[in-house]
Structures are given as C-alpha cells and as structure tokens.
C-alpha cells in the first residue's frame, strides 16, 4: 500500500541548490518504494541551526510553525517528513516546544495570525530515514534491490542532527547503526569499525569558522580512509556538503590526497533499485563515484 506523507523539502533541496541531487535521488527512491510526498505549499526556511542568533526564540519557532500550519491545512493527519537534518530538527523542536508550552503556543499563534494562519502541532515531524526504517523496515527496503552494490565498502557518516538530540528510535547517540544497516540492505559492505560516524563536521560554522571546522572534517574523512572505506554515506545535506566540498582545501592545507565520494543514502538506494546515474543524482556529486556510476549504467 502506498505510504503518504506531508513533505518539507527545505531550501537546500531546491533546484540548483546545494542538495538538489539529494532531492533527485529521494524522488527516485520514493517512486520505487511507492511513497507519496505531498510538498507543503509555500513552505519557508526552518531557520537552520544558525537562525537563533539574530532570530531569537519566538521568531524561529514562528518560522517553523508557519510550515506546520500550512501542512496541517494541506495534508491533515499526515506525518511531516523532512529530508534535511536541520529542517527536521528545527521543525521537530518547535513542535515539541509548542506541545510542551501553552504560553509559547499562544504567542506563536498570535504571531501567525498576522499571516492568517494557526498551528495545532498535531502532526508528527519525522526524518525520511525514520519513515523508511520504522514504516517500511529493512526487509521491505531490500525487496526492490535489483543491482546490489556488491563489494563497495561504505562508511556510514551519521553526523549530528539526525542523531541528536532526538535521533532515530532504538539507535544510540554514540554508535548509531542504521546507516550500516541501510548499506547492508543495498548489498554493499558497511565499514562498521568507522569511528567518526557521529563526529560533528562543524555544521554552519564551516562557513564562519572554516579552519576549526576543517580540522573536524579532516578527521571524518581520514578515519574513513583508515578503515578502508571507498565511499562515505550520510543522511544530512550539511554533512554531505561539508565533507565533500572541502576536500580540496584540506588537501592543500594538510597535504593530504582526499578524494572520497560522499553520497546520500537515497542515492545508494536509487542505484540499487535500478535508477540511472541521473535519476540517482550521481551527476550532482563533486567527487564522483565511478563504481556507483558503473553499476547505475549496467
């Protein structure tokens, strides 16, 4: 039976934005899995992890509450799914705070009234990975695999925000295993000893504090190499961006030779499900994965 969700794609997923290839692969993946995503009409930015400084508390919540209100109107009764870690976290945080505080709910609705909206916070806010694992399960996700990604060693880089503070049910904050399991599900080989799976990549501070952040990114990549990974997989657009695009700069600075593809889980799944390189958004990666492209071309 088709699964149907209210969908919050987030800014980075827009066409010609930094995670547009993520979106492409998600669409392919969902097609295969018969998942219907109902995009929230006229959604706005979540405020991201950096919005607090200028935005403060209530405005930030109002940003998210507006999306929630729009979703409640357009797709009542459906869970809200986000693909971006920050979008998910920001919206979920707002949802929980609103549910926990009548005062905040009142303030928020007072502000939203200006836009002609009202929020109830009655929809669950979930990350795409949660929906895949909890609503379908690994067995179900394995069924459509037609081109198993045999022999590819992949380090599952979970990062922070899909993992903390909420995380995926049943997973530990320090050693989540769901990416390893997804890697297994698509027939590839998880690098289970990879020990930087929850190290922070610097997040938004990759922009404002590049030197400090790159130290972290270097660690993340180095460990993947050290443990024999050929590829890194991640569920988060910021992680993907930071770990992929700074490799050149880090190479220059530290005289390293990093050149490791950083993929989204959805890209692996799309390829394994038989999508073309383009449908899997493989052309969107700065560091290309030949192996995946070869499999996709088969």
């Amino acid at each position, binding site marked *: 039976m088709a699964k149907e969700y209210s969908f919050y794609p987030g*800014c*980075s997923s*827009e*066409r*010609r*934005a*930094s*995670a*547009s*290839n993520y979106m492409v692969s998600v669409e392919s993946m969902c097609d295969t899995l018969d998942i219907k995503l109902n995009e929230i009409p*006229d959604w*706005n*930015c979540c*405020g*991201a*992890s*950096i*919005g*607090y*400084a*200028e*935005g*403060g*508390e*209530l*405005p930030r*919540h*109002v*940003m998210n509450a507006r999306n929630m209100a729009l979703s409640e109107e357009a797709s009542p009764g459906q869970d809200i799914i986000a693909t971006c870690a920050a979008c998910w976290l920001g919206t979920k945080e707002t949802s929980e705070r609103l549910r926990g505080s009548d005062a905040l709910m009142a*303030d*928020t609705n*007072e*502000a*939203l*009234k*200006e*836009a*002609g909206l009202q929020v109830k916070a009655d929809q669950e806010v979930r990350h795409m990975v949660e929906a895949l694992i909890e609503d379908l399960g690994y067995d179900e996700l394995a069924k459509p695999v037609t081109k198993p990604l045999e022999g590819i060693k992949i380090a599952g880089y979970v990062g*922070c*925000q899909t993992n*903390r*503070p909420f*995380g995926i049910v049943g997973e530990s*904050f320090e050693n989540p295993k769901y990416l390893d399991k997804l890697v297994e599900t698509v027939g590839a080989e998880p690098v289970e000893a990879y020990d930087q799976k929850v190290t*922070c990549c*610097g*997040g938004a*501070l990759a*922009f*404002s*504090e590049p030197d*400090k*952040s790159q130290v972290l990114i270097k660690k993340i990549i180095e460990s993947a190499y050290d443990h024999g990974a050929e590829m890194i997989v991640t569920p988060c657009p910021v992680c993907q961006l930071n770990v992929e*695009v*700074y490799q*050149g*700069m880090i190479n220059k600075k530290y005289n390293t030779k990093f050149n490791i593809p950083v993929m989204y889980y959805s890209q692996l799944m799309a390829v394994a499900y038989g999508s073309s390189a383009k449908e899997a958004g493989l*052309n*969107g990666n*700065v560091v290309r994965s030949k192996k995946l492209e070869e499999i996709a071309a088969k």
Partner: protein
Amino acid sequence: MRDKNAETMQKYHNDFLREVEANVEEGDWVHMCMQCGVCAGSCPLGDAWEHSPQKIFMMIRAGKREEVLTSDSMWMCTSCYNCIVRCPRELPITHIMHGLANYAHRLGIAPKMNPTRRFAKLFWNNIVKTGRVNELKLSISLYFMDGFTNGVKTSLEMTGMGLGMLKTGRLDAMGLLRSHGIKDKSGLHKALKKAREIEDARKGLS
C-alpha cells in the same frame, strides 16, 4: 532597558542568574548544572572555547555578567547536541548557548567581529527576505563580510569549491537575478515582526 553593566553584580548572589532565567532561552536551567564538565569535554570545538558551557554556568552563578555576555565562547556552538544528550542533568545546553549568544547580541555587547555572529545575522536576513535561503547571495555576502579586498581573496580561495558546485548544478549562478522565495512573503514578514515584538516585550528589550 537598565544598564546592568553599570550595576555591581553581587558575586555569588542570584542577580545575574535571575536575569538569565528571565531573558535567555532555556536560561531557567542554568541553576541545575552540577559542574561535572561532560559538556565541556563533549564539544567538538571545545579547544576553541575560552569558557566551556559548564564554566559559563558557574560564571553566571558567580555574577560575572560582562565576562559571560562578551564571551565569544558560545558563538563556537556548532549545534551538534553532544552536550545535551550527555548531560546528566538534562540541561538543554545547546539551546542555552544559543540563547546566551542571542541575548548578548540583542544587548549589543556580543563580540562585534565574531564571524559566526556576523554570519548568523547575514543568514537570518537572507532567509527572512524571501522566506528561503539564497545560497549564492549568502555566500557572496559572507565572503565580502570583511570588506571588498578580503572578499575577493576569500572568493578566490573558494573558487574551486564554487566551481564544483556550479558544475554539478548545486549552485545557481543566476541566483542573484532570479526571483526567489515564498509567495506569501508579506504574511511571513508580518508574523515575524509580531513575534519579535512579543519576544522583546517579554524580555524588556524593546
């Protein structure tokens, strides 16, 4: 608002703590810290902090108002949430750090040149304008944050990266020109304006 810096903060009395509780997001958790230091050890940019979260909480309790609010420590928060999930007292440390940064920023005493503070401001203004992030505009304004010359330098440094993004279709070269954002910009603006008013009133910041 009152100029609290001019007042003598009574050391180890609750004056500053009360101010933080009233005005800082999740500030009413500060008194629950038991100084175990797990947050300090958990922070990925811990090396870069002059004062760890736990120490900041102690400083708040010791009444060190100026030192806390002018500190750039909380601006080092990457929002990784390690501290939150490990804190044995379940303090929402990430949010308190954000709250303190925001409060210092709103008071105008946050470190002026802190890059994260400036980036955050650019970012917020960027998203509020159209309701969605314009990544190119954001990057460019970030590069030119420290003036034109530095900006050119930074953008040159970043060229390799930008080109890669362009080539893969993940950066919109026309983004400066293309119309962008949500339809109901005005509704969003009005709601945010209202939200700001409510919050300022609550915190005595207007």
